[in-house]
């Protein structure tokens, strides 16, 4: 534990585990807490950080035979009035950006969330998910350009019936660990999976290289300028 009772993700766990922090961002009532709860199921008691009214959930897993301790941070309603405390972003290794497919305004606000994230964490992998698809599955026949434009992996999910929740969180964990280990292979892999699918039917009109030129915000494409990334991001510049 570091100052203010917050965990320090630079330290390894008691058994040498890799510790990562994953945050969820998005408007009020898009289902961020419910997604985390669906992934963890019952039996996980969140830990309250009283200092900043944050909630975090601990989860143990393994990635490539490496033991990993994951902390999922939940906003505990702080997103209201767009007033996230900087400690929410501090040392985060991956971010899940959530919108609600039944409420357009939550999609329109994604760029604002991403912008704020990038002020604090310019390089961490970020995944995007469209939640509440159970309300009307027809929404999965529609395209949402934001994730592709920002070169983020995109998931149609439902915290209610569970669709793709586990897959998304496992991808996020692997991305967080890969980021911490200073490797971008995994995110490249996810993006390749998505793109191959497209290229097969897209008559090759787009190539990976074409796309790379207009990438800047997703943080998925490279690890350049990553020096001291863990230290530089507490203060808004």
């Amino acid at each position: 534990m570091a100052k203010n009772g917050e965990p320090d993700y630079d330290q390894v766990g008691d058994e040498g585990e890799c510790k990562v922090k994953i945050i969820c961002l998005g408007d009020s009532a898009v289902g961020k807490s419910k997604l985390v709860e669906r992934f963890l199921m019952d039996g996980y008691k969140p830990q309250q950080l009283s200092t900043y009214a944050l909630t975090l959930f601990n989860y143990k897993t393994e990635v490539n035979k490496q033991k990993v301790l994951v902390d999922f941070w939940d906003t505990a309603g702080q997103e209201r009035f767009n007033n996230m405390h900087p400690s929410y972003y501090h040392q985060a290794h991956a971010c899940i950006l959530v919108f609600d497919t039944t409420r357009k305004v939550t999609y329109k606000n994604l760029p604002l969330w991403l912008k704020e994230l990038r002020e604090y964490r310019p390089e961490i992998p970020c995944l995007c998910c469209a939640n509440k698809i159970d309300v009307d599955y027809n929404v999965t026949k529609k395209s949402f350009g934001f994730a592709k434009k920002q070169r983020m992996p995109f998931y149609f999910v439902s915290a209610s019936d569970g669709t793709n929740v586990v897959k998304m969180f496992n991808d996020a964990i692997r991305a967080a660990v890969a980021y911490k280990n200073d490797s971008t292979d995994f995110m490249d892999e996810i993006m390749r999976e998505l793109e191959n699918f497209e290229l097969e039917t897209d008559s090759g009109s787009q190539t990976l290289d074409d796309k790379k030129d207009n990438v800047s915000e997703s943080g998925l494409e490279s690890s350049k300028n990553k020096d001291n990334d863990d230290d530089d991001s507490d203060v808004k510049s």
Partner: protein
Amino acid sequence: MDEIEIQKCGVKFDPPGIVVVYNEKCSNKQRRRTMPLRDFTKNTNVEKATQDLLSHPRHGKYVSLITKAQLVRLVTIVRDKLNGMSLEASLARNDALDKIDPEENLNTVDEETLKRKKAVMDKTFEKHQVKPDDPDFKYDVEVEFDENNVIESGWDSEEGSDMEF
């Protein structure tokens, strides 16, 4: 709670209370139960008053058969009345609180509004929820959606969107 079935619910203003009309299955009789809201004033926290009712040793089993959203709505109507609001105005206000507007930014609404909207959304959530004790529950549900035969959502195209920042 298979032995009773709620048929109607409503409010009572003086003294403040919640009323349910229910069918008692074993006797097939219609009964009516009035549950007073104790120490209820115009400043009472609606959420707390609702919780108190739900955890009440005798009334709890009746009110828990009403959806939480509806119970909150009823308690709010009683409180609005104590605040001098007409029934018509209160109903209109509560209708607005129970309606989800896809354009409404819930980041900036007051606490009461946010809670009400969440309660409405929770109803849908619970309706579709697949729980661990459901026979077709699976922890990891992976579904691939065909990304090729899609139409534009129309959510990207509008002017004034802040996609370039």
